[in-house]
């Protein structure tokens, strides 16, 4: 998010050598990604695998980074440089449900501010924060390709479009 201090990622992660463990099924899934690229271009699989690590571990944690460095023959800092570039990769933990409200032009003029205000006051957080029970994180994100059905938000990978405050209430209450 705008305004986040850039150094915060690097300074507070406790650096360990622990390597994440994945089940054989997940490893097989990782290998199916690797198989898409020429064998000497393993690094190509880095972003898909980062997404996978995030899916499995909730965020890009230290053991996950160590795993990928190991799996793809990279330095941990190589993983870091790539991972921190991409806004979908969370370098710190997020809530169980990551609510990402689109804040770009079409959504904004179609009512995003009300939606954001509604969600934040309902959950008692500011954008960028996680609820105390760890259930929700609310983020404002840039255009998600849903301008025709604005305003919208994405929770996890699910698109919720043509939002109204009532619809938001329904969606939130349906989430476990």
């Amino acid at each position, binding site marked *: 998010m705008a305004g986040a201090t850039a150094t915060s990622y690097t300074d507070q992660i406790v650096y360990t050598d622990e390597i994440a463990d994945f089940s054989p099924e997940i490893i097989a899934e990782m290998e199916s990604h690797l198989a898409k690229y020429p064998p000497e271009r393993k690094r190509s699989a880095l972003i898909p695998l980062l997404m996978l690590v995030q899916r499995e571990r909730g965020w890009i944690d230290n053991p996950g980074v160590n795993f990928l460095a190991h799996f793809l023959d990279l330095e941990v800092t190589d993983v870091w440089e790539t991972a921190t570039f991409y806004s979908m990769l969370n370098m710190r933990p997020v809530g169980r449900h990551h609510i990402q409200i689109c804040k770009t*032009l079409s959504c*904004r*003029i179609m009512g995003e501010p009300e939606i954001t205000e509604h969600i934040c006051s309902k959950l008692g957080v500011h954008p960028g924060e996680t609820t105390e029970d760890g259930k929700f994180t609310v983020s404002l994100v840039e255009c998600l*390709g849903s301008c025709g059905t604005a305003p919208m938000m994405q929770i996890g990978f699910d698109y919720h479009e043509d939002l109204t405050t009532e619809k938001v209430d329904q969606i939130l209450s349906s989430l476990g």
Partner: protein
Amino acid sequence: MEIKAIGCEPLQLKRVHLENGHTLKVYQQTGGYESLKKALKMSPADIIEEVKKSALRGRGGAGFPTGMKWSFVPKDNPKPKYVVCNADESEPGSFKDRYLMERDPHSMIEGMIIAAWALGSNTGYVYTRGEYKYLIDIMDVALAEAREAGFLGRNVLGSGFDIDIHTHTGAGAYICGEETALLSSLEGFRGHPRMKPPFPAVEGLYASPTIVNNVETFTSVPQIIEMGGETWRSLGTEKSGGTKLWSISGHVKRPGVYELPMGYADMEKFIMEDCGGMLRDDKKLKAVIPGGSSVYIMNAGQILGKNVTLDYEGLVEAGSMLGTGGMMVMDETVDVVDTTKNLTEFYKHESCGWCTPCREGTDWLVKIFTRITSGGGREEDIQLMLDLCDNIEGKSFCPLGDAAAWPIQSAIRQFPDDFKNWIANGASSNGAH
């Protein structure tokens, strides 16, 4: 939301309303993969020739003639060649590729296979923005179907030609829509653009010849092969062939994805009639950004009664650009300082940080906008912003810098009062946010 063709037979949108239009079965029932069969009997040179004749211009925003781009791929380079589909669709206001992939993924796949045949490539990648996870799942299924049916894999339809196509996910970065940044990202690096020349057609993915085209560009290819380049071109104008998808959003009654023939007349009719007119009947049209956020904003006076034709040339003449055809319509409740700030924040967030003017310029501009919209505007700010834009425009490493400058330059030009109001009164003219 509407999805329909106006002024032409649905071509790109031929299958979007069919039940199970995304399946191989329905695709084949409606003529799918016939173009591939035809293409495999043509020589690569002939295919490129047809595409040249069609006057197809890339649909990713830059509008570069596709046939010409394909002809840049060196024939004698011994390295493998790659075909990459740019499905990163992150331009604010643009959401057309999404529906093509969701409802007719085989069109894009067929287009990619034909391109690969024409260019002598055996591997293709579909680089899709990470947020479109559900589309990647749809495409993975479609690719598996095509593989199963022998359209992909070894010895496609007995032709001796091998091709496989894989999906690849992005992870949230607008700049990865820029073709060279896309390739950096596809190689597992930070999404920084690369120097051109060498152009990707000569040295792209893994330093090998690579063609990058937009989804809609690829979906046009089977149609061109099917009906012939000439015929396809004649659907549009001399210089911009065929039909084009427009994404329309904002203050209209029927936002959506519309297929229009190139050269559609006119923009006012499109907004005011085809899309149902203004969302709120009592509010007048104030501004339109016609081609996705990276083009000049237009005021109502540039559109109403001006017979603006919807093609590359028409929009340039009217003072903007076609871009990706992501049209954002704003009524008079909108404050252009606010919308421009919003877009500048977008560019600041998406600036990759590689080059000085874009990285520092967008940061600085956002700070000025923030100060203005919190009541601290100064008279000299407008001049300063224009000067900063001038210092970014044409000097940045890639076009994102220009794209960040243009909305501001045009907003100040077309809506000077909105800026003056903020600076003089510390508030918006119309009380809008």
